[in-house]
């Protein structure tokens, strides 16, 4: 069934949709731009929700199932809103043999959640990474995107405490 080529309206009046629209326009609304567009949505809004996936799928004329397929296939995309702060423990090989499991244990204990979850108050999200490429400084964790080098479980506890009690 042909889909109407009329203009698809964004889910809301939010100005950030203009940035998303610009990405799609730059790629001539090509289906091949699906991943690029989802990157822009996630960069602008922090995550991909259903209305945004529907909007992107319709605009690029790909089935919603394909948009969902891509969004869930790649680890980088998140379908849930992130917490106010994020802590990412790197599980690369160098970090792993230098104590990443202990960091992960500390993270789970301090926050009472497992990787991929956010504390019930929405303050902190816990995540893991396959390798962030800072292997010389292992073990590392990223606190709001900043690499903390040669991290100990105690340092981690201190940093998380600041977020939780702030």
């Amino acid at each position, binding site marked *: 069934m042909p889909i109407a080529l009329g203009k698809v309206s964004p889910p809301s009046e939010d100005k950030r949709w203009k940035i998303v629209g610009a990405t799609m326009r730059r790629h001539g609304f*090509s*289906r*091949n*731009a*699906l*991943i*690029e567009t*989802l*990157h822009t949505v996630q960069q602008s809004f922090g995550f991909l929700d259903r209305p945004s996936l529907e909007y992107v799928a319709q605009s690029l004329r*790909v089935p919603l199932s*394909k948009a969902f*397929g*891509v969004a869930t*296939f*790649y*680890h*980088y*995309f998140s379908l849930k809103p992130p917490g106010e702060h994020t802590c990412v423990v790197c*599980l*690369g*090989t*160098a970090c*792993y*043999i*230098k104590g990443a499991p202990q960091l992960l244990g500390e993270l789970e204990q301090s926050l009472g959640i497992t990787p991929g979850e956010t504390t019930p108050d929405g303050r902190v999200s816990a995540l893991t*990474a*396959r*390798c*962030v*490429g*800072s*292997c*010389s*400084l*292992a073990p*590392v964790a990223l606190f709001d995107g*900043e*690499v*903390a*080098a040669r991290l100990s479980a105690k340092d981690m506890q201190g940093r998380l405490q600041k977020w939780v009690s702030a």
Partner: protein
Amino acid sequence: MTPEQLNQIATEEAAARQSVPQRLLVCMAAGCISSNGEAVKKSLESAVKAAGMNGTCPVTGVGCMGLCSRGPLVSAEPSGILYQDVAPTDAGEIVQSLSGEPVARLQCSRDLPFFKRQVGVVLENSGRINPERLEDYVAAKGYEALVQALTEMSRAEVIEQVSRSGLRGRGGAGYPTGLKWSTVSKAQSTTKYVVCNADEGDPGAFMDRSVLESDPQRVLEGMIIAGYAVGASRGYIYVRAEYPLAITRLNTAIRQAKHHGVLGTQIANTEFDFDIDLRLGAGAFVCGEETALIASIEGGRGTPRPRPPYPAQAGLYGAPTLINNVETFANIPAIIRNGGDWYAAMGTSRSKGTKVFALTGKINCTGLIEVPMGMSLREIIFEVGGGVPEGRKFKAVQTGGPSGGCIPEQFLDMPVDYDSLAQAGSIMGSGGMIVMDDSSCMVDVAKYFMEFCMSESCGKCIPCRAGTAQMYDLLAKISEGRASLNDLAMLEDLCDMVKNTSLCGLGQSAPNPVVSTLRYFRDEYLAHIQEKKCPAGVCAIKQEANA
């Protein structure tokens, strides 16, 4: 850009360099930035200002200087004195020392084997030029090779030099680069593509990241030359979204290259047009596989497809596509400039040139190194890398990431090249080398890699999707002391099955870490199974299992 314009930029840069007596170079690659390098750079700038040396001693951010474990690193030019572990508060002292004795407490000797034993080809500019200025690259002979290729060489001559160099794919598989180029160049099609694989997914490896952050123009130049040689007019760099600094520097490099006319239409006043775009990966290890990478550039899920047809015949959007790794492209400018024979003079008979390795784990000097092929593991780990810290005993070195294996002590004198590593049950891989001491348990390491492959399996073929999960369960059982010898036999059977029946490289090589640890550390497996003990004390053996 014409040869004249190129010369002009190089001359102007040299004159500008001459006009300042000294310079301070600060490492601005990801490692040193994470160790507070940006603050060091800022305080050096203020210290230079305060000393009234504004204009006579510029402070320049450069790429990776290699010894990441001692960062932030600062180098004083032209003396070449290197400072390690520099804190922002050291800035004043360093600036004052420029007219006198070096600051002894911060000095890092350039005579360390870590520096002395290295040979820079891919990393020749790394830590020396500002990666955010095309002019710096041109002053270091950048784009000479491109202009030479476009104005003096035929496409066949370019491929001839690459073939003569003996360069093999640096992504890990080691396919001869010249042969790949020649196949794509012979393919009949009006549209062809060049793709740079910068989806560096192996955990414990950061070679590509460093090259992209330290010398991005070099990768562009390699790709443009490749485009000319194979007859493509469009290139894509598929780079991990997890590398924000590399992405920023690549975008800057592409913008500057277009501005200076080395990218775009009628490059170097010839009929050759070439354009490069970035495509961001989204965190899927399987996308390092070339057909999965193509599927991802096309906007879909990164699932591989059977080969043939190889991408060289039918790749991106069905067109003939040349796919090479970052390091492979980064070798090209030097090969064209100095000739294939020059490159082939380095290395071993079947592995030519140099290789960049990321040296990490239980080793004193962690960081990025480039050494000639054929150097022994012992030299790399104990001389260049300075050995294992805290007086502990070397146990194994892991190469090739989740597709590789663990190489034990008895192979330390083996030369590092594609064939020797394969014989020892591992692979060259992209260049990650993770050193492990006696505090690591090999069953645990095998389990770690299997967990990785299990969650990174794309799910398309059953041997990989189900096989890795079953192998992981068996490894978990062994590590918890719940396994029998039958389980071990089943694990070995599964290794064989998954290796021989999986669709792509991910599945075919997923059993490697298990196979190699079983080959060299079988006693550790048996200790977990028969004695319910973890000799390294890593695995949590369930006590009830003893009952």
